[in-house]
């Protein structure tokens, strides 16, 4: 029977429990986090979601097919193009429609712009968690240029409602392609500025290196995809694995994280790698934008064979789209009726949520906002 050392006995400290949420500056959105803290070190955490549940998938079943695309914007308004694209691809697969080449190119253009705008929002959230104010304003200023492009092409800045089954609603105005090329040049310059200001900043490196290490097999087991998965070495990119909407026509390298020059090495899957990967994704998206903008063919932009009553034949399909957070799957079941039987989304953020209790163990309380910001679980797409 080991005798408890008297000193340890009287110094035994109880764990402090602290329930954060549903609204808190440390959290990426309305969710609850029950922490048990040993001093400033987090011992364990449990999360609770559902605060942003709007019954999106129930709403699909009560609206005619035409309104489905408008609803899919609200899966994740930060990257509404991805929700629309997932639904459209699935329905086009059921109805066996071929989207004209120009429509596919515009979809690629808007997807990459949506990815850039989502990653810029990501940088703002990480900087906000660390109180690095200056880069927030630089990034928001540049994000305006991307949102202006959305408004020019589709009429709205965030919730575009621009894709239709079979292509896009209206053709893009001629000035759009030139302005996309302008934005590509802008971001080459700006990325360098972000790096000087923030990425190579010593305080930033110290705050993120070694924080919340997600190993490759844990990422795979939990199903973490997208930048978070790639940062942990689970290299899976839907644009390469299951090319959709003409992505196989472009050659681009899937960005993989590696440490910054100072300690170049394989990516460990910590917060710094996740952040770096988003920056590299922006430059990849800029290359893709350039290729798509230069190679866009003219001609038909939408499949017009719908006829008066746009009825989707009965059937079922599953489409995959690479969003800024990972693999977004969309399972559509239709019974040939006026409205869909079931539209189910597989959001990438469900896996990010399930990674939180593991990653949070053992970190300090101050790192919690930074970890959650770099992991970036999308609350609106996880609760639907």
């Amino acid at each position, binding site marked *: 029977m080991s005798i408890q050392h008297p000193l340890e006995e009287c110094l035994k400290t109880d764990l402090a429990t602290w329930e954060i949420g549903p609204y808190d500056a440390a959290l990426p959105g309305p969710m609850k986090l029950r922490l048990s803290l040993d001093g400033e070190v987090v011992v364990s955490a449990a999360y609770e979601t559902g605060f942003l549940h709007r019954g999106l998938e129930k*709403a699909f079943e009560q*609206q*005619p097919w*035409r*309104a489905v695309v*408008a*609803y899919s*914007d609200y899966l994740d308004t930060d990257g509404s193009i991805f929700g629309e694209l997932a639904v459209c691809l699935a329905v086009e697969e059921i109805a066996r429609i071929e989207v004209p080449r120009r429509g596919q190119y515009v979809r690629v253009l808007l997807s990459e712009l949506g990815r850039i705008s989502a990653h810029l929002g990501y940088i703002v959230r990480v900087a906000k968690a660390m109180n690095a104010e*200056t880069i927030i*304003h630089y990034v928001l*200023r540049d994000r*305006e240029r991307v949102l202006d492009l959305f*408004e*020019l*092409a*589709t*009429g*709205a800045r965030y*919730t575009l*409602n621009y894709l239709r089954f079979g292509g896009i*609603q*209206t053709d893009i*105005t001629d000035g759009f392609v030139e302005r996309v090329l302008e934005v590509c040049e802008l971001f080459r310059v700006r990325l360098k*500025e972000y790096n*000087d*200001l*923030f990425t*190579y*900043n*010593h*305080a930033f*490196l110290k705050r993120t290196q070694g924080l919340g290490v997600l190993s490759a097999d844990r990422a795979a087991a939990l199903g973490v995809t997208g930048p978070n998965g790639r940062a942990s070495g689970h290299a899976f990119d839907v644009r390469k694995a299951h090319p959709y909407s003409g992505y196989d026509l472009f050659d681009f390298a899937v960005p993989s994280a590696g440490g910054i020059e*100072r300690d170049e090495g394989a990516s460990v899957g910590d917060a710094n790698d996740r952040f770096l990967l988003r920056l590299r994704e922006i430059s990849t998206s800029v290359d893709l934008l350039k290729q798509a903008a230069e190679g866009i063919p003219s001609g038909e932009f939408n499949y017009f064979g719908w006829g008066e009553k746009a009825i989707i034949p009965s059937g079922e399909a599953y489409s995959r789209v690479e969003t800024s957070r990972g693999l977004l799957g969309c399972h559509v079941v239709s019974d040939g009726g006026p409205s869909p039987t079931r539209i189910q989304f597989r959001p990438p953020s469900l896996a990010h949520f399930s990674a939180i209790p593991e990653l949070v163990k053992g970190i300090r309380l101050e790192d919690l906002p930074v970890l959650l910001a770099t992991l970036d679980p999308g609350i609106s797409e996880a609760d639907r």
Partner: protein
Amino acid sequence: MRGSVFSTLVAYLKDVLWALRSVWGSCLTAVPYLFGSGDLHREVTELYPDPISSKTPDDLPAKSRGFLFNDIDRCSGCRECEKICPARCIRIEAEPAADESKIWISVFDVDFSKCVFCGICVEVCGPNSLRHTREFEGASYSNNEMVTRFGRGWVSPEQRKKWAAMRRQIEEEDGVRS
């Protein structure tokens, strides 16, 4: 052992030097905003409504979806927009017009506190009477002010009697002439 002490010292000094260089580099990136000319120095935020830099509706691109406008004369009262609206913010009440065949749209309310500006109603509108303006300044202090009314208003019973009287008069004239 000696090697390791020396190497840790070098690594420590290198780390400190790297820290200084990177923090100084970050500080320097903010300097051109202070003194530089050109687009870096220009403020991005503005004192809204700033007469020079604030965007007015016609600065916005052609397709930008602002508040709705319904040209009630061309509206056929088919209620397609009311059925398709995802936010269910359009309310239409109709009643027979002066002559029974035509329709009199007495209420056509669009509740802009619920509208999400998705634009499907404009797409679905048959006679193209409903369309987006590029207006975006619609803030108001109370919710019921946000409801825009395009309807022609309910027909009062006296009005109906007057119509009936006019119709009878027209029929008498036709009867006399034919």
